[in-house]
């Protein structure tokens, strides 16, 4: 088990290296530079700036320099947010995005799972159809439509919740972003759970459990759900990585200082180090959560073993 985890983590290093390489050269090919303004800077100023940030050196050298600093977990200074290093920016914003994402993930899992199980138990009956129609709606309505509508109703008309802002993560400020973030995930989780639950309820081990005279609750929660949760787990791996690394839309609409916005801002302003930093962080999350999913699989399904 430990050896498996270790080998997976070591195996991630070449992947990360390739990702860093591809994205480093991709963003450098993009036209424009970090110091291009509406009114061009003076030649001397530009020259000095380029010197400080090593932009005057050949691209190959810059790449090696970047690899060296990133190996020491130093993402370098930001080109756009002049007074900050990328590490400082992430130290502020990543915990916020992770808190939001984690809350949304838990909400999606609990609500979506419960709905899915209920729909599966009442297959092809009105409850089932209602839940599934709501789930389809949840998947199809984009969150930049849901967010303003919820804000208008709950924030402006009813005045129950604040319209936006982070406010140090106060509970009332978190509700709307978390709910908007969770809604599409709730829908997907409900659909997945329903599908696999229907299959699990028909399977032999569940029939055996019923034949032993176990209570309905035991049969469903302990025996059927354990197998039925597997597809949900494998879906939640990449989804969790995406949720925890922030959502541009949600952070823009609700004015939350998370990490999601940095992607767009960094790419548009050619803030090379910021873009690279976000790419690396997101990739790490993806790799980590894929590993977690595989380990969870072994935990849930005794037939899966890593020796």
């Amino acid at each position, binding site marked *: 088990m430990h050896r498996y985890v270790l080998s997976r983590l070591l195996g991630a290093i070449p992947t990360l290296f390739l990702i860093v390489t591809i994205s480093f050269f991709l963003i450098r090919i993009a036209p424009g530079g970090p110091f291009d303004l509406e009114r061009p800077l003076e030649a001397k100023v530009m020259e000095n700036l380029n010197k400080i940030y090593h932009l005057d050196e050949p691209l190959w050298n810059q790449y090696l320099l970047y690899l060296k600093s990133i190996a020491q977990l130093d993402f370098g200074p930001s080109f756009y947010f002049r007074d900050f290093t990328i590490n400082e920016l992430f130290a502020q914003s990543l915990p916020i995005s992770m808190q939001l994402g984690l809350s949304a993930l838990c909400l999606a899992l609990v609500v979506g799972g419960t709905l899915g199980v209920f729909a599966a138990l009442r297959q092809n009956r009105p409850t089932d159809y209602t839940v599934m129609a709501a789930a389809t709606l949840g998947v*199809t309505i984009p969150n930049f439509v849901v967010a*303003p509508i919820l804000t208008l109703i709950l924030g402006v008309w009813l005045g129950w919740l604040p319209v936006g802002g982070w406010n140090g993560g106060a509970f009332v400020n978190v509700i709307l972003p978390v709910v908007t973030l969770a809604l599409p995930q709730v829908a997907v989780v409900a659909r997945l759970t329903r599908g696999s639950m229907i299959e699990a309820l028909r399977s032999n081990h569940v029939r055996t459990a019923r034949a032993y005279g176990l209570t309905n609750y035991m049969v469903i929660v302990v025996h059927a759900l354990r197998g039925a949760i597997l597809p949900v787990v494998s879906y939640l791996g990449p989804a969790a990585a995406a949720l925890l690394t922030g959502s541009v839309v949600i952070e823009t609409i609700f004015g939350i200082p998370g990490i999601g916005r940095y992607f767009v801002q960094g*790419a548009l302003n050619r803030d090379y180090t910021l873009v690279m930093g*976000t790419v690396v962080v997101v990739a790490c999350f*993806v790799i980590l959560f894929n590993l977690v999913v595989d380990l969870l699989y072994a935990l849930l399904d005794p037939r899966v073993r890593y020796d």
Partner: protein
Amino acid sequence: MTMTATNPETPAKGRSLWDDARDRLLANRAAVASMIVLAAITLISILGPILSPHEFDTVYRDYVKVPASLEAYPRAEQVEPTFLSVMKRARLTVESYERDGDEVVAKVTSRREIDPRTTRYIDRSDLFKNAALTDMSEDKKSATMRADINYMHFYFGTDANGRDMMTRTFIAGRVSLTIGLLATIVAISIGVLYGATSGYLGGRVDQMMMRVVDILYSLPFIFFVIMLVVFFGRNFILMFIAVGAVEWLDMARIVRGQTLTIKRQEYVQAAEAMGVADGGIVRRHIIPNTLGPVVVYMTLLVPKVILLESFLSFLGLGIQEPMTSWGVLISEGARNLQGAAWMLIFPSIFLTSTLFALNFIGDGLRDALDPKDR
């Protein structure tokens, strides 16, 4: 047991698996209804802008943010103030104002001689047409101004620039649907070819090809998209071909998995035994047999791409004005939500029902093509 008389001349027509699938799909009421809805939306998007009396980029300065309504504009209480303000702009003094049905009649005077061209001031307003000066007095300092009221309908209201929302929604539909279809076709073509080749060749080539897919997978997708926007910013058709070129990864995986099972089937072995070249087998046997899941995935990819385009437009990276897409309209609507809710509601209805319909068609196709249910 009864014998059925069979006519040896005309053998009973066999039912192909596609026939069965089609019948099952047509029996699915949600899928059929969705197909009708989708066809209607497509038709409206294609024909609507042609049939609509408004152009999608015409600005009606007198009708900024008017609510959606079945009644014609201008409203009764709107006519007099607008007429008076136009007359003021034309430097004419209104002695008497009278509204006669669909016509406005006013006696006007001026300190200087009235130029017959002043009627243009009225025609330029969106509320009136066919303005005419009659009964000009001897000294040309007083006359009667007549103008017809120009009735217009804004069934979906107008936007913050005074453009008809209905025509804009239809035009946006054209853009969004085209983008969805275009990118999907590109993604499917690349994905199917790549996946089928990789799965069929197998071995080390397969490993290499799939490793490439894995690496591209772990690159954050949005990074890719933003880079594409940076490169192709001004040309959205090119951009979405590029988006399609990024979206093929899932497709490649699905098709590869299918291919792995198909290539062990007897008919593929038979083809191999007959000496058919690899390319021929992939084209003739592998790809046609993977089409089931491909079609299902396609109906789910189109909404994904439409959403992606909307998302980019929301960030301000999408279509440029005055062209528009559902995503652009929705993000504008979200900004004007207070006080102009119709700007959000109508494009949202169109976008959501399209996505809804595509999802149901996808589900229906999956059920129809799923061999487990037979």
